């Protein structure tokens, strides 16, 4: 039994010695305060254990006594070394430091002041209890503080860090306990009990635990992060859905930190700008003043589009090639996700550009004016994108100068000062002057990354900086206006975006063009209305003032021939006849002209008109002429159309009148026909009269154009011109078909009632 216990003790001695050597070696390999204090702790303990195994049984000489006292005080230092080791992870408050030093110092002092080494069987003195009390307070007090603080340090930390701290904490407590037991039981001698076996084995087990906690091997690290690896699988799924880099960082960085026990992680883009970062929630009071002792190392994972840096926390054991490999494979995932996000965002940007362009185009084509379209364009762009302000210049009277329009859009976030806006509102730019002036002269859009850096910008002292885009509004190749957009922040040129803004300029150019042609049209309509009014005035004058002199000529010629008949010879009478005839004809020309102009100037009153009645009336009026010529007039059953009864009556009278008038030697026959066509009525007035050469088919509708002499057929040649005007005012067409000697048909169309109504 004793022999077994001794063997166990020997193995334990060897194990502790090996542990000390390993700790020192570890410190030599990875020198750090933590590994240093751990080497001191385990090294000093191994040293004491080794020396004490060669110690004689009896301590009877002063030399052996002081050697024993020396060894014992080194043993007193052991918990203090542990305390220091703990301080490298979790910095204790200052008062605790002082208590620790005081305890250790008093324990060492008490050991050195011990008058002798107590032997079994000696009566126990009172001071010996005091010594034991100080020793236990130092040993167990500090060990408990260390154990508790290490445990709490790992609280809230990701798996690897938390488990490591717990392992260290348990090892500390276990080791302290084991030493306490061996320290108390060994000097006393006596037979080992089963309990002392168990304690010995337990203490023995805690020693490797210690080293395991401090420098966990790969397999242990793998086991510790199993939970986090499961969490990572979930994060990977989440990552599939992430569509912007910020979101990707939010998902990936915490998982990466948790997996390797990192304290913080940062995602950088290709320019080294921070896209997203993550800081692990700090453990339970790592330091009172917030500073972390022994900042951990960092691992950099290079990406195609930047990199991820993971900082180890002080609780992390260390980053080995295993961690680097894990992070590297996560980096591949990050790369994929980032590429997908970038693609998605580019697509989204393109869509939003299209949407903006669509909105601007819609408002540019709305019936409102140019100013409204420009305002809508500025509003849309500033609302949908990061431009915060927009303004427009137009070119008005002076083609070499842009005029401010006072059309602005200002987002609430815009930092453009009142001064700047008022300066913009008063600056009219000459070609080539300032940014807008240059765009004006070149017709090319311009993206300014930062106004503060742009020497051409004339209003630079009035802005705090930021990007600007200036695009022309063009009609054809002429610049007719300038749009400028401002942002609060500098922005690198975005060709795609500038292209969209340029397109907006093109759309607005079309609006300007349309407005211009509308203006032109309105002006022409006004001219036309004026000339119509002039014409009416002319008609009035013609009816009144032109007839008066005619009447004078006519009346006095007649008086002359009456009164002086006897004094005039036949020639004189003939001359008077010519003069009277001329004046009479002139008067009928003036009258016809007047009635022609009246067809156009009078309002059209559309009512359902029965053409059978209209024809009936016309035939009544021509009763005499029909009788004289013996004409036979026949008519189809005619429809009721929408029309002005007065004008339709004039139309049919003229046509029937002509048909009767231009008869040849045969008995005149007139036929009025009506044909129902898909969207109109086709009418024909056919005679068997003299007809005319088809080449004159168009000329007959020209005012005062005649194909026959007045001697053959009287008339001024206005009848068909009036007919044409009436038909066209009703929305129809009129044409003539004729052959010399065979007769003539005048065709005309009138819209059918539903078409007129529509």
């Amino acid at each position: 039994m004793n022999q077994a216990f001794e063997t166990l003790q020997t193995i334990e001695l060897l194990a502790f010695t090996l542990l000390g050597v390993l700790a020192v070696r570890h410190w030599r390999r990875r020198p750090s305060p933590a590994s240093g204090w751990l080497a001191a702790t385990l090294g000093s303990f191994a040293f004491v254990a080794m020396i004490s195994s060669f110690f004689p049984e009896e301590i009877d000489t002063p030399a052996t006594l002081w050697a024993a006292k020396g060894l014992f005080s080194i043993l007193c230092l052991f918990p203090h070394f542990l305390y220091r080791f703990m301080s490298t992870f979790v910095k204790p408050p200052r008062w605790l430091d002082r208590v620790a030093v005081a305890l250790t110092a008093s324990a060492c002092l008490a050991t050195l002041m011990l008058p002798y080494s107590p032997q079994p069987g000696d009566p126990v003195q009172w001071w010996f209890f005091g010594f034991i009390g100080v020793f236990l307070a130092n040993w167990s007090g500090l060990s408990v503080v260390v154990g508790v603080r290490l445990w709490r340090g790992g609280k809230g930390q990701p798996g690897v860090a938390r488990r490591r701290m717990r392992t260290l904490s348990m090892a500390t407590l276990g080791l302290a306990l084991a030493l306490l037991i061996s320290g108390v039981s060994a000097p006393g001698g006596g037979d080992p009990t089963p309990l002392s076996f168990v304690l010995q084995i337990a203490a023995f087990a805690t020693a490797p635990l210690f080293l395991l906690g401090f420098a966990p091997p790969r397999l242990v690290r793998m086991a510790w992060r199993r939970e986090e690896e499961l969490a990572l699988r979930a994060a990977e799924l989440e990552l599939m859905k992430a569509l912007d880099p910020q979101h990707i960082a939010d998902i990936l960085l915490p998982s990466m930190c948790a997996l390797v026990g990192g304290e913080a992680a940062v995602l950088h883009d290709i320019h080294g700008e921070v896209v997203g970062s993550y800081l692990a929630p700090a453990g339970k009071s790592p330091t009172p003043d917030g500073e972390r002792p022994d900042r951990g190392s960092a691992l950099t994972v290079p990406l195609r589009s930047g990199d991820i840096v993971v900082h180890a926390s002080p609780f992390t054991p260390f980053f080995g090639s295993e961690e680097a490999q894990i992070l590297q494979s996560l980096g591949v995932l990050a790369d994929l996700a980032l590429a997908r996000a970038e693609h998605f965002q580019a697509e989204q940007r393109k869509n939003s550009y299209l949407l903006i362009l669509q909105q601007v185009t819609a408002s540019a084509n709305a019936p409102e004016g140019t100013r409204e379209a420009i305002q809508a364009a500025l509003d849309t762009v500033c609302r949908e994108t990061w431009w915060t302000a927009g303004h427009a210049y137009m070119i008005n009277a002076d083609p070499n100068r842009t005029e401010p329009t006072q059309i602005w859009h200002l987002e609430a976030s815009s930092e453009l000062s009142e001064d700047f806006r008022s300066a913009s509102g008063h600056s009219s730019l000459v070609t080539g002057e300032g940014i807008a002036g240059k765009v004006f002269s070149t017709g090319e859009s311009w993206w300014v990354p930062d106004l503060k850096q742009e020497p051409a910008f004339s209003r630079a002292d009035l802005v705090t900086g930021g990007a600007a885009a200036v695009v022309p509004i063009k009609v054809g190749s002429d610049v007719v206006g300038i749009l400028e957009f401002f942002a609060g922040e500098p922005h690198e040129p975005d060709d795609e975006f500038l292209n969209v803004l340029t397109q907006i300029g093109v759309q607005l150019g079309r609006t300007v063009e349309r407005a211009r042609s509308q203006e032109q049209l309105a002006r022409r309509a006004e001219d036309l209305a004026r000339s119509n009014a002039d014409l009416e005035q002319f008609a009035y004058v013609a009816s009144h003032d032109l007839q008066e002199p005619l009447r004078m000529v006519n009346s006095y010629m007649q008086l002359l021939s009456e009164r002086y008949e006897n004094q005039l010879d036949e020639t004189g009478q003939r001359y008077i006849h010519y003069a009277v005839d001329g004046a009479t004809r002139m008067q009928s020309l003036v009258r016809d002209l007047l009635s022609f102009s009246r067809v156009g100037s009078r309002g059209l009153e559309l009512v359902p008109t029965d053409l059978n009645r209209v024809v009936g009336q016309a035939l009544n009026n021509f009763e005499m002429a029909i009788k004289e010529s013996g004409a036979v007039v026949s008519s189809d059953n005619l429809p009721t159309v929408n029309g002005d009864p007065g004008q339709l009556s004039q139309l049919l009278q003229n046509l029937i009148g002509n048909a009767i008038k231009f008869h040849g030697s045969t008995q005149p026959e007139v036929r009025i026909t009506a044909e129902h066509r898909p969207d109109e009525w086709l009418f024909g007035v056919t005679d068997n009269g003299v007809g005319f050469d088809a080449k004159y088919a168009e000329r007959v509708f020209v005012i005062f154009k005649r194909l026959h002499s007045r001697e053959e057929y009287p008339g001024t040649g206005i009848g068909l011109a009036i007919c044409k005007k009436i038909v066209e005012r009703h929305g129809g067409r009129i044409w003539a078909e004729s052959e010399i000697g065979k007769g003539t048909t005048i065709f005309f169309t009138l819209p059918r009632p539903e078409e007129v109504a529509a």
Partner: protein
Amino acid sequence: MNPSYRPINILLVEDNPGDVELTEDALRKSKVATKVSVVTDGEDAMDYLRQQNAYHQETMPDLVLLDLNLPRKDGMEVLREMKDDPNLKHIPVVVLTTSEAERDILASYELGANCFISKPVDLTEFRKVVESIDDFWFTIVKLPGGSRIR
């Protein structure tokens, strides 16, 4: 019907001497005895009617033949003033003018013209028109001594 034996006093407001002569000629040939006074513009016409200035000794006309196109005050204004004046509104007015413009005709009737006649170009026609004024006269004159009921 009992025609008056004293000549009818007619005021002819006409600035064209040719027309004046033609009208006088036509009236001379008519069945009724007429005494024609001529003024050549609207101002004179109003003076004549109100018997003021140069015309204070003239007698009130029984009928006014009024041209529309007159120098100074035009025919429309003369017509308006006559019909606004209680002393003059009973005097029948025949608008005898070259105009055939609808707006002239409508405006004349609206202002209270008793008749609107366009002067025909043909002399014979013109004479017929003046004769019709005679007829018109007989239809509105009911009592001898010039008292008229319209």
